[in-house]
């Protein structure tokens, strides 16, 4: 038994040495990835002095809003804070609290049933955006785990890059470059041909969304600070909508009953065909983004006028 345990220990030490060597592979330089957008968007929002519109959500907001068009029609500066659904809802809401001032308008347009952020994503984002450490804390085990995952990802990325260099069919990675414009809109994909990656499962599983309470308590803080908040549904591929129509209807019902803020539209209003999407069922292409923004401008015009904010 002792010899057996000694063998396992030696094997484990050898493995740790290998992992230690792998961990020394340098990581991607800062300010180059898609997630770097968080810092960029924060800086854009902080630089605007007059009342502004802040659009909040996951990547469907990053891909789906033409802030310039909205700004010129509504005569208010617009900043697009949408980035990544894996950051969940609490994270962007916390960030928004830091960038809004009295007189601002926040438009919330999160993806359906946006859940909790993944630990790995939070750990990653704090490297790009140190302020994120104010929003959450990770246990030592979680940090260790995400560091191991990070090493794994880095090594894998290096290997894939080498293979990609050998392949004649170069792949465009729109998530790897500096891809946001001066409003925070995602523009990296606009000149790329449509691809369709079902990265996420299309089927939704119904649950009462805990985000409703989070949004309501967020809105209370915002109202106390003189900030107006509206809610809009995300753009959705028709195929995904057809699969989830009943669940989306239930979610809409829950939101209509539960939210204390105006809801500008209905889910069915923003269901678009495939030719308006870029890669996933939430990511609009140029045409889709224009259509979505135009519709949103009309709704905002009406609501802002009703609230005497225009």
């Amino acid at each position, binding site marked *: 038994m002792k010899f057996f345990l000694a063998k396992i220990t030696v094997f484990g030490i050898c*493995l740790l040495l290998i992992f230690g060597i792998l961990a020394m592979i340098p990581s991607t330089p800062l300010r180059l990835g898609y997630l770097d957008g968080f810092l960029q968007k924060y800086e854009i929002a902080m630089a605007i002095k007059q009342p502004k519109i802040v659009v909040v959500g996951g990547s469907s907001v990053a891909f789906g809003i033409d802030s310039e068009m909205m700004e010129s029609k509504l005569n208010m500066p617009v900043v697009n804070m949408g980035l990544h659904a894996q950051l969940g809802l609490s994270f962007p809401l916390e960030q928004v609290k830091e960038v809004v001032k009295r007189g601002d308008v926040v438009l919330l347009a999160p993806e359906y049933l946006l859940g909790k952020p993944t630990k790995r994503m939070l750990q990653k984002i704090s490297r790009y955006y140190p302020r994120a450490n104010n929003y959450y804390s990770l246990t030592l085990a979680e940090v260790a785990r995400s560091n191991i995952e990070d090493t794994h990802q880095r090594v894998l990325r290096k290997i894939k890059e080498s293979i990609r260099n050998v392949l004649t069919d170069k792949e465009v990675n729109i998530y790897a470059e500096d891809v946001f414009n001066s409003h925070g809109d995602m523009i990296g994909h606009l000149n790329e041909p449509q691809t369709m990656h079902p990265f996420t499962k299309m089927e939704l599983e119904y649950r009462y969304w805990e985000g409703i309470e989070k949004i309501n308590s967020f809105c209370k803080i915002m109202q106390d600070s003189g900030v107006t908040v509206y809610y809009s549904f995300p753009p959705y591929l028709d195929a995904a909508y057809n699969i989830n129509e009943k669940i989306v209807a239930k979610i809409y019902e829950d939101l209509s009953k539960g939210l204390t803020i105006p809801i500008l539209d209905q889910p069915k209003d923003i269901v678009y065909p495939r030719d308006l999407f870029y890669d996933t069922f939430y990511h609009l292409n140029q045409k889709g983004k224009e259509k979505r923004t135009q519709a949103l401008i009309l709704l905002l015009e009406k609501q802002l006028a009703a609230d005497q904010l225009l």
Partner: protein
Amino acid sequence: MFFNSIDFAVFLPIIFVLYWALDKSKLQYQNTVLLIASYLFYGWWDWRFLFLILFSTIVDYTIALRMEQTENQQHRKRWLWLSLGVNLGLLGVFKYYNFFVDNFIAAFSFFGSPISIQSLHIILPVGISFYTFQTLSYTIDVYRKDLKPTNNFIDFAAFVSFFPQLVAGPIERATNLLPQFYTKHKFNESQATEGLRQILWGLFKKMVIADNCAVLANFTFDNPEMYGGSTLLLGAIFFSFQIYGDFSGYSDIAIGVAKLFGFKLMQNFAFPYFSRDIAEFWRRWHISLSTWFRDYLYIPLGGSRGGTASKVRNTFIIFLVSGFWHGANWTYVVWGGLNAIYFLPLLLLKRNRKYTNDIAANRYLPSLREGFGILTTFILTTLAWVFFRAKSLEAAFDYLGGIFSTSLLSIPTLSGRNTDMVVLMLLLVFFLVVEWIGRHKQFAISKLNLNPIGRYFLYLFIATLIFVFQGEQQDFIYFQF
């Protein structure tokens, strides 16, 4: 608790140390440790399921003892029917109730008399099909007097719930596994080392092969209309490797873990994708289930004796039941039926036992004939897997229609994922080479003909591959059965 989880990585060493720390005390203590560990392992998913397994254990323990106490054949038969009724009844309620209800409603609606029957909102207990069949083998063997029932409840409960193979097999026969709980195990270093090797290879199959194949297979199966025929075929091939890596990987880990505790479980997979015809495939795929059906269903039905009609009937019964065992969906039934159609010509032409010898024995490569057989068998099974993977029969036919289209001869492409595809193909080549080299053994990296240092480096290399190329963690497919 998943085998490829941190929880299990903590759980296993603790149980291992506890178990062997008691090797000088009574056997009963060691079995009690295994029983508690097994219940902890199973309750990790949902503690409520423990009542079900406990109930099943008590019922079969009692019935077997009652059977032993009487020589009256009629009484023994009644006890057996009670065991069958309880076990299959539980399986029926938890696994098949909603399926039958839905189909009844559909059938009545079709004939213009819509009826309303309440569906049950219940979760399928993990591994219910596996432990049900295992306990059934016990009562049937006791009924047949192939096995003496045990008086020791701890031994029996530990046998039913033995955690390495509880949730996804191998489905052990009581005649093989139960007696192993009667004898004291002495720590055997070479058996334990072999167990670790098998665990390592099982983890590679699951975390590298199955989990990476799953991502690309999911792309094509979730959105078949987006891809050409060749890409859909590639997606189906990826699924073939996913299900093999997933299930045989689980079996390897289970067998390896059992070896750490001194237990020997049956081989569940014997390199099935190197089979030269479908009959050989079914002797090499999910061996514990195939032999269970053979011994407890096919042979009692008459097996391959009797006339052509009876052979055809028995073959269809065993394949359809096997398909239905996998899940309450017509897709599994069609999958079983398709395999029966593949198998029948071999049976009727008496060629079903043509390949019982080793593949490419004493040769590095298969002969042309063998190679052709291996390729044909693989393609046939891959096409059958489409039914197994698809959500509905309609989806399966659409997928197959997509494969057999004009774009079948185009170059497969998964835009944005071509690099992943190339990486996966390289990993599959490595995997197949190692499996081919080790095809005559219990598992591919067992007792390699390498010097100790070379072997050591190979194991380190495989562990590093697991770390670097592990895919996004997916549930074990067979847990749902």
